[in-house]
């Protein structure tokens, strides 16, 4: 199994470890609810070094990003980050990715851990430009410092003034004396930063952040809390809301598809699907009956199979059982009475607006 540079730290801290797509990762330390609440009310620290990094170099870097990804990379300013879709020609997702424009000739991309090899191969083999595609994962460890006290925690460790960095922007600076890419991004629906540092610095930086956050009640957080947090914020998880069989149109990610930017890989297929009509849509639900609708459970409308749950579970913030599911487009409306088949037992639920949680700005 693959391990991040922080593996021994997690074990020393007594984290419960799980196999996450071939990575030996902490699922929880003090408990998922405790960690979740720390991120919503104070600050949490996540090791997300399993995430992959791929870089485009050269004068064609932006052109390549615009060809391979659905969002308008050419609109990015230096120091800006952008969520985007990496699609096959047939319109399905290779991955969802986070682009960062470092310079006019340098794009830095954060990709999903278990997709990184596939992503790199896809980018390399679909590169019609002179840009160089570099598989850079081994050069980075990634830590996420998330929560309302995330900025204050990180500010103690850097001379870079963090307050002028807007959401989905980044800067290169130093954290605890080591070079770091400091991005105001995250996967929790909360304020905070994701920092990229050299792997050999990860353990020291982890300790520094834990110390800096102590006065705010910082908690080390695992993948369990990462999942409940991102679900409340309705952020997609590859293999759940999106995969090779689903396009951004089904996943309510039309906003990351810029048809007017010119041609891109998957554009024709998406346009065709748009003209023919999107058959199913992602919609949020809330359990009204007793039970928890979970990933993969069948969804019934009027007693007949209609769709499936992509992610489901308890929402610690709301104190309700929530989830996301695919339903036929005409059924995927707010306020629809549905049932989730929980161990052969249909349990009532209702579709609701998303995101389930939105932080006060």
């Amino acid at each position, binding site marked *: 199994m693959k391990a991040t540079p922080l593996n021994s730290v997690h074990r020393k801290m007594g984290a419960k470890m799980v196999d996450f797509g071939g990575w030996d990762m902490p*699922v929880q330390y003090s408990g*998922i609810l405790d960690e979740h609440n720390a991120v919503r009310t104070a600050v949490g620290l996540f090791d997300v070094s399993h995430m992959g990094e791929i870089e485009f170099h050269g004068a064609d870097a932006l052109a390549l990003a615009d060809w391979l990804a659905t969002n308008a990379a050419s609109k990015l300013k230096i120091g800006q980050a952008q969520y985007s879709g990496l699609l096959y020609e047939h319109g399905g997702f290779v991955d969802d990715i986070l682009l960062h424009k470092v310079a006019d000739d340098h794009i830095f991309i954060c990709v999903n851990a278990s997709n990184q090899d596939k992503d790199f191969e896809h980018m390399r083999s679909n590169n019609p430009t002179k840009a160089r595609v570099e598989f850079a994962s081994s050069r980075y460890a990634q830590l996420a410092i998330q929560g309302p006290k995330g900025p204050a925690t990180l500010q103690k460790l850097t001379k870079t003034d963090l307050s002028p960095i807007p959401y989905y922007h980044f800067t290169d600076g130093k954290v605890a004396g080591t070079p770091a890419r400091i991005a105001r991004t995250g996967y929790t629906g909360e304020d905070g930063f994701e920092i990229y540092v050299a792997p050999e610095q990860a353990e020291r930086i982890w300790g520094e952040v834990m110390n800096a956050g102590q006065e705010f009640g910082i908690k080390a957080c695992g993948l369990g809390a990462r*999942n409940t947090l991102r679900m409340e914020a309705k952020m997609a998880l590859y293999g759940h809301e999106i995969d090779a069989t689903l396009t951004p149109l089904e996943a309510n990610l039309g906003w990351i598809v810029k048809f007017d930017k010119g041609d891109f890989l998957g554009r024709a297929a998406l346009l065709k699907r748009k003209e023919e009509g999107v058959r199913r849509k992602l919609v949020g639900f809330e359990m009204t009956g007793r039970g*928890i609708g979970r990933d993969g459970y069948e969804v019934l409308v009027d007693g007949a199979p209609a769709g499936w749950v992509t992610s489901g579970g*308890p929402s610690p913030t709301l104190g309700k059982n929530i989830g996301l599911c695919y339903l036929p487009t005409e059924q995927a409306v707010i306020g629809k009475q549905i049932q989730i088949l929980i*161990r052969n037992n249909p349990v009532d639920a209702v579709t609701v607006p998303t995101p389930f949680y939105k932080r006060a700005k």
Partner: protein
Amino acid sequence: MYPADLRYTKEHEWVRVEGEIGTVGITDHAQKELGDIVYVDLPKVGSAATKGQTFGSVESVKAVSDIYAPISGEIVAINEALATAPEKINEDPHGAAWLVKIKLGAPEEIKQLLSPQDYQKYVEAEAGH
């Protein structure tokens, strides 16, 4: 660690036998493995439990875990408090957070359950894997 007056299963349930009634719960090891428990599904009073068959489930934030009947008999009571406070299972798994009471249908089954010492060994061996 594991109370001496209880008997245990390899599926991590416990039974406390008092007269003809067996009180059933899940072990401290089971609650730790599950993490924060958020939901409990228990059978109806009056229904039948069959040793080794699932009769309910306990759910944590991340996972669903079946509960297997450690003994056969009739369900004569369920712990109603767990419906609104399932987290009690994390707090007091061998005491206040019992799940069901079963009127013993086959008292000789008790002998097949694990002693506290044997259960402890079993859990340690499992962890060693």
